[in-house]
């Protein structure tokens, strides 16, 4: 067991305190083995920067994004209303999450159901810590490495966040190289719209393979991601291409944490 501090909202409440920000972990971040590493990397950065954050822990439940994108509006709203009740009871004002799907849903679709919060993707939040001088980023082992960033659809096109993750990568003194289709024209990894949970429809290729090929064209040493689902898809793609030994798929938070041996 490592030495990380992860207080819950209930604990803060018991002490009569409010955290600075709620860390919305999300289902992937809580249960998926690969994504849990991202969650912990982010926690270590937050601990290091002395950010007073809290998680909902067992009071957190799926935002409802995969249900909504499958077309089950009813299940989505049940999930949303339940989560909103919990968060409003804790008087949550500000939320950070490492999942663009949770980010998009809470930021855009919860307000209409009574959940109004300031919501930030973790790359935006880390960028703000950097700007406020609360976080310093070193290149460490990533100095001079060729890194390409894969834009998550629900961060980029869906919400026009393109720069925060890139600025963080540049701070690592890494060589940020762009894929042919990037930013607003970035190609999906294939997981969105609940595709993550089903076999793809019939076609002649899997979408994550197509995207991995685009990424490999840039001859990267690292493919940086900002979404646990993109991470899985790209990791599978790299495995499919038998490039695991040359190319790593890492979340931006992991890059920052690992650079400082956190």
């Amino acid at each position, binding site marked *: 067991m490592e030495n990380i501090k992860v207080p819950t909202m209930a604990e803060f409440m018991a002490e009569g305190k409010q955290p600075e920000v709620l860390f919305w972990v999300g289902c992937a971040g809580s249960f998926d083995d690969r994504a*849990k590493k991202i969650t912990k990397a982010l926690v270590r950065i937050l601990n290091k920067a002395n950010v007073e954050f809290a998680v909902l822990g067992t009071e957190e439940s799926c935002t409802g994004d995969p249900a909504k994108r499958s077309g089950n509006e009813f299940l989505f709203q049940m999930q949303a209303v339940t989560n909103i009740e919990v968060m409003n009871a804790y008087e949550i004002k500000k939320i950070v999450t490492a999942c663009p799907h949770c980010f998009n849903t809470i930021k855009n679709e919860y307000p209409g159901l009574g959940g109004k919060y300031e919501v930030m993707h973790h790359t935006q939040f880390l960028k703000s810590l950097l700007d406020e001088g609360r976080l310093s980023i070193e290149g460490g082992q990533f100095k001079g490495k060729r890194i390409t960033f894969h834009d998550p659809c629900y961060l980029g096109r869906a919400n026009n966040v393109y720069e925060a993750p890139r600025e963080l990568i540049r701070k690592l003194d890494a060589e940020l190289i762009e894929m042919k289709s990037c930013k607003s024209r970035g190609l999906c990894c294939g997981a969105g719209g609940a595709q993550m949970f089903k076999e793809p429809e019939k076609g002649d290729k899997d979408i994550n393979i197509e995207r991995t090929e685009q990424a490999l064209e840039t001859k990267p040493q690292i493919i940086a991601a900002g979404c646990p689902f993109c991470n899985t898809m790209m990791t599978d793609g790299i495995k499919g291409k038998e490039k695991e030994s040359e190319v790593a798929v890492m979340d931006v938070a992991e890059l920052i944490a690992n650079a400082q041996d956190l």
Partner: protein
Amino acid sequence: MNYIPNILFAIALISGIGYFATNVKKLIRNLKLGRDVDVSDNKSQRWRNMAMIALGQSKMVKRPIAGFLHVIVYVGFVIINIEVLEIILDGLFGTHRLFSTVLPASVYGFLIGSFEILAALVFVSVIIFWMRRNIIKIKRFWSKEMTSWPKNDANFILYFEMVLMTLFLVMNATDVHFQAMDTGNIISQHITSWFGNTSSETFHIIERTAWWLHILGILVFLNYLYFSKHLHILLAFPNTFYGKTRPKGQFDNNEAVTKEVKMMMDPNIDPFAAQPEGSVTDTPAKFGASDVQDLNWVQLLNAYTCTECGRCTSECPANKTGKKLSPRKIMMDTRDRLEEVGKNIDANKGMFKDDGKQLLDDYITREELWACTTCNACVEACPVSIDPLSIIMDMRRYLVMEQSAAPMELNNMMTNVENNGAPWPYNQMDRLNWKNE
């Protein structure tokens, strides 16, 4: 004086515009078949979008070659239409080049000169467009949904433009009086020489013929629009105005569902109590969309506006990897079905008679709908603010909420969300276990 030409002209003009008006009426009637939707938000953003995207062609130029050529044709088209005003007045009043008598020769020359240059540029651009489609065979113009009619439609318009531009230049070139003015005939003077030693009598006949064909051609073109993807030259303006102004990732929350959910969650409401009167009408008869009448009128306007350019499809991750889904086809199917429903209503004295068909299955298959990753690439790519994704989502809602017809794996995922609060079968009580692992 002989009034026959004036009368013939007036008849042509009135019937041309009259037929166009009936089609516009039909179009509006068809749009109204859709559900109502609130578009009163973000007014200033909407005006900005229309100015930038429709008037300013900001999305077109994202693909520089096609964008540049399109801007030429578009600017040419709009500006040369000033000349049509003169032609109409001449036709009605039997004058000849009315503006040349009211405007100073230099101004008139400048105007016609710019029209001539634009006409020549349009001509060249249209030829390049034709080559891109038919010789270079750019992939997005040859996808499956580009069956014979959409392909012909695109080519017809290109031929039409070539002919209209030629007629305009020939009309100027053979106008002895205009050539004698020797101002503004930048291009046409060279064409004049092609005719060699033609008598002034023949010149006059050619000039009149070109003049008549040109204006009749424009009236035919106007009436061709309704049946063509070229409706976008008019509808791009309202469509960019009514297009989505919220973040692309934000999908609508269904209000009827909200009411139901609130009721279920509220401990003070007795779910078995008698419903207050009128509450039944609050719930839509059906969730999601299985036919065009279930879509809202902006989605239907989207369908009529689609230029069939295929930019959406060429960016679609599902389509790129060989899946059946093509967002362009979603739009074309929606328009075709809407036209079919419209004709059905016309044929049945204003009432829709069930024809045993619907948009779902008869036009758009489930396989297409389930291939979408909701990535918004199509929405981003569209040069006229069309949202194919919103139609896909409404149809998925119908499948899931009305028919419980989601793919099995998605049903499993949703059961997990319902029972465990996560898409996988993990216990919600284990949600913080990662902390100690």
